[in-house]
């Protein structure tokens, strides 16, 4: 999994398939990064993601809880139509802003 830390921002470059199998790894690695780098903002980058299920929603909700306690925010970028549908249906769009590409 690829991550980028810039000041107190953590970008998580999500994999092609965000399911339970991959979610476990992201959960452990990102929590470690959040705790050790004074992270306040988490950006979920869906550029490569073609599949996402409720395990992916779980990853977002878990990170949100952690970051919210620290007074920060989470957001999503590069979402496809399918991913936006999943995010909207699950209701996480109420706690997370989706930023669209400027064209």
């Amino acid at each position: 999994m690829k991550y980028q830390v810039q000041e107190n921002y953590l970008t998580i470059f999500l994999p092609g398939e965000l399911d339970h199998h991959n979610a476990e790894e992201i959960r452990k690695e990102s929590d470690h990064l959040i705790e050790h780098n004074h992270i306040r903002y988490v950006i979920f980058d869906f550029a490569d993601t073609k599949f996402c299920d409720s395990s992916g929603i779980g990853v977002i909700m878990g990170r949100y809880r952690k970051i919210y306690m620290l007074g920060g925010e989470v957001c999503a970028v590069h979402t496809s139509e399918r991913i936006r549908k999943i995010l909207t249906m699950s209701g996480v769009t109420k706690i997370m802003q989706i930023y669209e590409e400027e064209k």
Partner: protein
Amino acid sequence: MENTNEMQIIFDSYSSNESFARVAVAAFMTSLNPTVEEVADVKTAVSEAVTNAVIHGYECRVEKIFLRCTTCEDTLEIEVEDHGKGIEDVTKAMEPLFTTRPELDRSGMGFSFMTAFMDQVEVSSEPGKGTIVKMKKTIGKGRKIWTTQSL
């Protein structure tokens, strides 16, 4: 009955097999000529059912998951069966955001996604015996007849 097709797969409850299961069902349903959207819906629903069996049914032990698929005319029927611990209160388990494993970052949206993406979802479960999730979806329901524009 005419135009029926059937397949069964038995696989170990490794989390890596979740992607195998949904891709196998996606490949099987191509004969129904589904849209990209319909394939994505079915893949998500299968993924949820299999993930439930791995995490909740077998509690991450490695045992067998049974996946059965049937197509009849334009309807796809999927059954995911595990012989794990079963569900005590199915109605409660199917409530959105209800989860027994919040410590694992489970969102509690699994059954909600299954019901949202499939036409029909039935769950039969007995504590200590296991769970069977039956899902049905009619493919090509919303498809409009393709007509050319008149000149």
